[in-house]
C-alpha cells in the first residue's frame, strides 16, 4: 500500500480538477476554456500511459489496487453489507482506460466547433471523462454503477445542449434507454449484493466460484436467482452495446450529438457494454455464458448482418456510421460467444480498435459537416479534390472500418471470427457475409463522399487545419500501430484473459 496505488484514482479524478479550474474562469473567455479543457485531460492521459508502461504483465489480479470501506448497511443478523470504494487496474481495464484518456483528449481538442457555452461544455466533458475512466478503473460493482450513471447523466446534457437539430429528442431517448439498462444493472447489482454480501470484483469472483462449485447442493432458487442476475446483466450491457433490438436509441444519438461527444460515445461509451460483458458476463458467469453462447452468437450474427444491411441503404453519412457501429458490435458478440482465448481477445481488441476508428470517423464527419453543412450522401461527392488530406485520412478510416489488414480493425475482427470458428463454424461462416456487406457500405460512404465529380459549391472548401489533422493523425497512428503490432495492445491483457479462459474451461 503505497501512494502509487492511488494511481487509478488519480487518473480518474484528475479531470475534476479541470472542472474546478473552469469554474473560476469568466464565462466569455472561450479560448481560455478550450485551453484548460484540453490541458485538464492531459494529466490523466499521462498517468494512463504511465500505467500502461509500468503494467506488470505477469501479475494476476488487480494492480494499483486500493480499497477503502465506503459505507456499511447494517442488517439484523450477521455481517453488515459493506460497500467499498475500490479501484484497480487489470488487463481488461487498462487498455480501455488508455483508450478513454486518448479519446477524451482528442475529443477535447476536437471540440473546436463548439462555440456556445464553452465553459459548461468543457466542464461536462471533463466530468464525462472522469465517469468513463471510473467505470473502467472501478474494482467494485457499486462504484462501477455510480460511474456508469454519471456518464449517462453527463452525456444527456452534452447531447441535449450542444447537439444538432433533433438533440432534445435524441437526448431523451438516450436517457430513457440507458436508464432502463442501468435499471437492469441495478437489479443485478442488488441481487448480487444480497447473495454474496459484497460487490468487490475479487469477492464476487471467489464467491461465485464457490457457489457454482456446490450448486447441486444448494436450493434450486439460488440457481434461478443467478440466472436472473445474469440475464439482467446481459440485458443491461446489451442496451449499452447495443445489441439488436435495443439499438434504436443509439442511431439518433450518433446523428444528433455534437461531434466530440459522438467520438466519445461511439469510441468509449459503447465499449462500456463490451467491458461489462467481459467483466461481468464472461468473467463472473462463465457457466451461464457457456449455455447462452449460441444465443449470443446468433445475436451477434443478427447485429452484424442487420447493421450492415441497414448501413447499405442509409442516405446520410452519420447514419451509415451508426449502423456500422451496430454491425461492429456484433463482432464483439461473436468474440464473446466463442469463449476462447482468441475470441475474448478479439472482444477487447474490437473494443479498443472500434473506439479509435469510430472516434476518427466521427471526427472526420464533424469536420466535413462544418464545411459542407450537409452529411447527406447524395449531396456530397468529389471532396478529394478540394480536401485531399481529409480524403486521405477518411480513406484510412474507412479502410480500418472495413477491416483492412495492417489496421487495427482487422485484428479485432479476425480474432473474433477466428474464436467463433472453433465452436460455431456455421454461424461464423454466415457471419462472414458481413465482411462483404461491410465493404459495400463502407465503400459507398467513402466513394459517395470523396470520389466522383466535385460539386461546384465544394470547390473552394478549406482542407483540414492543423488542429484537426493532428488529432486525426494520432488516431491513425494508433490504428496502424495496433494493426501492425497487435501485441502492443494485447500483451497487457494476456494474463487476465488467460485467467478468464481458464475459468471457463474449468
Amino acid at each position, binding site marked *: 500500500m503505497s501512494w502509487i496505488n492511488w494511481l487509478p484514482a488519480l487518473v480518474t479524478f484528475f479531470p475534476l480538477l479541470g472542472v474546478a479550474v473552469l469554474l473560476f474562469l469568466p464565462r466569455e473567455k472561450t479560448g481560455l476554456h478550450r485551453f484548460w479543457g484540453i490541458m485538464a485531460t492531459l494529466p490523466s492521459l499521462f498517468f494512463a500511459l504511465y500505467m500502461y508502461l509500468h503494467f506488470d504483465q505477469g501479475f494476476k489480479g488487480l494492480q494499483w489496487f486500493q480499497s477503502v470501506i465506503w459505507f456499511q448497511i447494517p442488517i439484523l443478523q450477521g455481517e453488515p453489507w459493506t460497500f467499498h470504494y475500490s479501484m484497480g487496474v487489470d488487463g481488461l481495464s487498462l487498455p480501455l482506460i488508455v483508450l478513454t484518456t486518448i479519446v477524451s483528449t482528442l475529443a477535447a481538442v476536437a471540440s473546436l466547433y463548439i462555440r456556445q457555452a464553452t465553459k459548461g461544455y468543457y466542464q461536462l466533458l471533463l466530468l464525462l471523462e472522469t465517469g468513463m475512466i471510473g467505470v473502467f478503473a472501478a474494482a467494485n460493482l457499486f462504484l462501477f454503477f455510480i460511474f456508469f450513471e*454519471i456518464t449517462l447523466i453527463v452525456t444527456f446534457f452534452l447531447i*441535449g445542449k450542444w447537439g444538432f437539430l433533433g*438533440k432534445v429528442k435524441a*437526448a431523451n431517448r438516450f436517457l430513457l434507454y440507458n436508464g*432502463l439498462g442501468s435499471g437492469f444493472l441495478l437489479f443485478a447489482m442488488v441481487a448480487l449484493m*444480497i447473495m454474496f454480501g459484497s460487490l468487490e470484483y475479487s469477492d464476487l469472483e471467489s464467491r461465485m466460484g464457490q457457489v457454482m462449485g456446490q450448486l447441486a447442493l444448494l436450493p434450486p432458487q439460488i440457481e434461478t436467482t443467478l440466472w436472473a442476475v445474469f440475464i439482467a446483466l446481459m440485458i443491461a450491457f446489451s442496451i449499452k452495446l447495443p445489441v439488436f433490438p435495443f439499438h434504436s436509441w443509439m442511431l439518433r444519438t450518433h446523428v444528433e450529438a455534437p461531434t466530440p461527444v459522438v467520438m466519445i460515445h461511439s469510441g468509449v461509451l459503447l465499449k462500456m457494454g463490451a467491458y461489462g460483458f467481459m467483466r461481468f458476463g464472461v468473467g463472473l458467469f462463465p457457466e451461464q455464458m457457456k449455455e447462452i453462447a449460441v444465443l449470443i452468437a446468433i445475436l451477434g450474427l443478427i447485429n452484424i448482418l442487420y447493421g450492415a444491411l441497414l448501413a447499405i441503404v442509409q442516405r446520410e453519412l452519420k447514419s451509415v456510421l451508426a449502423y456500422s457501429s451496430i454491425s461492429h458490435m456484433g463482432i464483439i458478440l461473436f468474440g464473446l460467444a466463442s469463449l476462447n482465448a482468441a475470441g475474448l481477445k478479439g472482444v477487447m481488441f474490437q473494443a479498443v480498435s472500434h473506439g479509435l476508428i469510430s472516434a476518427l470517423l466521427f471526427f472526420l464527419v464533424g469536420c466535413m459537416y462544418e464545411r459542407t453543412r450537409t452529411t447527406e450522401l447524395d449531396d456530397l461527392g468529389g471532396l478529394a479534390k478540394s480536401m485531399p488530406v481529409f480524403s486521405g485520412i477518411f480513406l484510412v478510416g474507412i479502410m480500418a472500418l472495413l477491416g483492412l489488414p495492417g489496421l487495427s480493425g482487422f485484428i479485432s475482427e479476425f480474432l473474433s471470427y477466428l474464436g467463433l470458428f472453433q465452436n460455431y463454424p456455421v454461424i461464423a461462416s454466415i457471419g462472414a457475409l458481413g465482411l462483404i456487406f461491410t465493404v459495400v457500405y463502407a465503400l459507398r460512404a467513402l466513394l459517395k463522399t470523396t470520389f466522383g465529380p466535385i460539386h461546384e459549391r465544394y470547390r473552394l472548401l478549406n482542407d483540414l487545419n492543423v488542429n484537426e489533422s493532428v488529432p486525426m493523425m494520432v488516431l491513425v497512428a494508433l490504428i496502424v500501430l495496433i494493426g501492425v503490432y497487435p501485441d502492443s495492445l494485447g500483451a497487457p491483457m494476456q494474463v487476465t484473459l488467460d485467467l478468464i479462459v481458464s475459468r471457463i474451461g474449468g
Partner: protein
Amino acid sequence: MIQTLLDFDLRVLAPELVIVAAAALLTIVDLLLKETVSRKWIGILGLLAVLVAGIFVGLGWGHEPYQILGDSYRIDDFSLAFKAILLFGTALVLLFSLSDKDTEKLEAESEYYSLLLTALLGAMIMVSSAELITLFVGLELLSLSSYILVGIRRKRADSAEAAWKYVVLGSVSSAFILYGMSFLYGLTGTTHLFEIQQHVAEIAGTDYQAFLYLSFFLMIVGFGFKISSAPFHTWAPDVYQGAATPVTIFLAVVSKVAAFAFVVRIVLIAFIPLVTTGVWNEVISWSFMLVAALSMIVGNTVALRQKDTKRLMAYSSIAHAGYMLVPPATMGFVGFDLFPSLVFYLVAYLCMTLGAFVVIEIVARRAGTYDMNAFAGLYQRSPSLALIMTFFLLSLAGLPVTAGFIGKFYILMSAIASTHYWLAAIMIATTVISYYYYFGFARQMYFRKAEDSQKIAVSWPTVAVVGMAVLGTILLGIIPDFFLQAFGQLDWVSGFSQAANSLGY
C-alpha cells in the same frame, strides 16, 4: 392503582410542551401586536420554538423507552428519530416562510405560523403515541391544521378549492380510519396498542380474523390517504397545487413523514401477531406492496403529462410514497432491518423534495406562473440555482451520487431480498419513466432560451433552506455511512415493545 399524569416524569413531554406553549404564545402575541408591526417576528419566534423543541428531542436521546399513561405518550428511539425529522422539516418550512413574500398569505401570517406549530404538534403526537385515541386526535390535529393552512390564502379560489377537497376527502379518510379502529377496538376492548397486540394474538387464527382484515383494510384507506399513495392519492395533486408552496412542502414532507410513522406504529404493533398465522405475508404485506406498486405506476406515469410544476411534484411525491412503502411491505419476509432504509429514504426525500419545491417557488414567483416554462433558460439566468435544482432532480430520480440514489438502492435491496422481484421490477421501470419528467426540468433549464434574462435574487433565509437541503442531499449521498451507522445503532425495536415503566391498562 390509577395513575395520573402527574405520576410520570413529564420532562419527556418537553418538546411538545414547547410547541404548545409557542403556539399559544404566538396567538396571544399576535393579538397584542399592532397591525403595523411585521409578523415576521412571530415566525422567528415559531422557528425558535421548533429549535428549542429540537434541542429537547436531542436531549431525550439515550434513555430507556418511557411511556406515559398506557402508552398514550411514549418516547423511544423510533419516536425521537421521527420527531427529529419532523422538527427539521418544519424548521426549514418556517425558515422558508420567513422569506416568502406571498402577499395573499400575509393577511393571516401569525395564524399561519401558529397553525404550522399546531400541525407539527399533531404530527409529533402521531409519532410518539401507542394508543388509538391519542393517535387519532393527533392525526386530526394535524389534519385540521393542514386544512386551514391549505385554505389560508382566502383570496385565491384555487386555495379554497384545494382546502375544500382536502377537508372532504380527509374527513372521509378519517371516517374510514375510525371505522377500522372501531373493529379493532371491538375485538380487543382496548385502545392501547400493546394490549390490542395481546388480544390480537389470541384472536389470530380464529374466525374473528375476518374482522381484523376488515379493520386493517379500512384503516389502509385512511393510511393510504395520509401518505398519498394510490389509489388513495387523488387529493394530493389538487391540494399541492392549490396550497401555498410552504404549506405544500409541509404536507409533502412533514405530514407524510408523520403518516408513515403512524402507519408503521399501528400496523407493526397491532397486527404483528398475524405473522405467526401467515396472514401477514399473504395479506398485509401484499396490500402494502400492491399499494406501493400502484403508487409508483400512477405517480410516475401521470407525472409525465404535467405542465404545472407543483402538480408534477405532487405526482412525484405519490411515486415516492410508493417507494417508501416497500420496506414496510417486505419486512415480513427477511430479517431485513426495515427502519434504517425507511428512515434513510424519508430523510433523503425530505431534503430533496423540500429543496425542489423551494426552487420551484423561487422560480415561479419570479415568473408569475408555476408552469414548466418558467424554468426556461434558468441556467443562463441563475446558473447556481439551475445546478442546485439539477442536483435535487438527480436525487429525486435516484441517480448517483445523491441521497436519493442510496435511499432507493437501499429500498430496492429490501424488495429484492424479500424475493419480490416483480416489485423491484416495477420500481426500476417506473424509476426509468420518472427520468423523463425529472429531466423535463433540465430540458427547460439548460436547453431552452430564457425569456427573462435577469438574475433571480434569493433572500438569505431561502439560501439557508436550500443550502440545508443541498447539504443533506449531498451528505446522504456521499457519506451515507455516517447516517447508516447512526440509524443502525438506534434501537428501533423499542418503539414496538412495551416500555419498562409500563403497567398496562
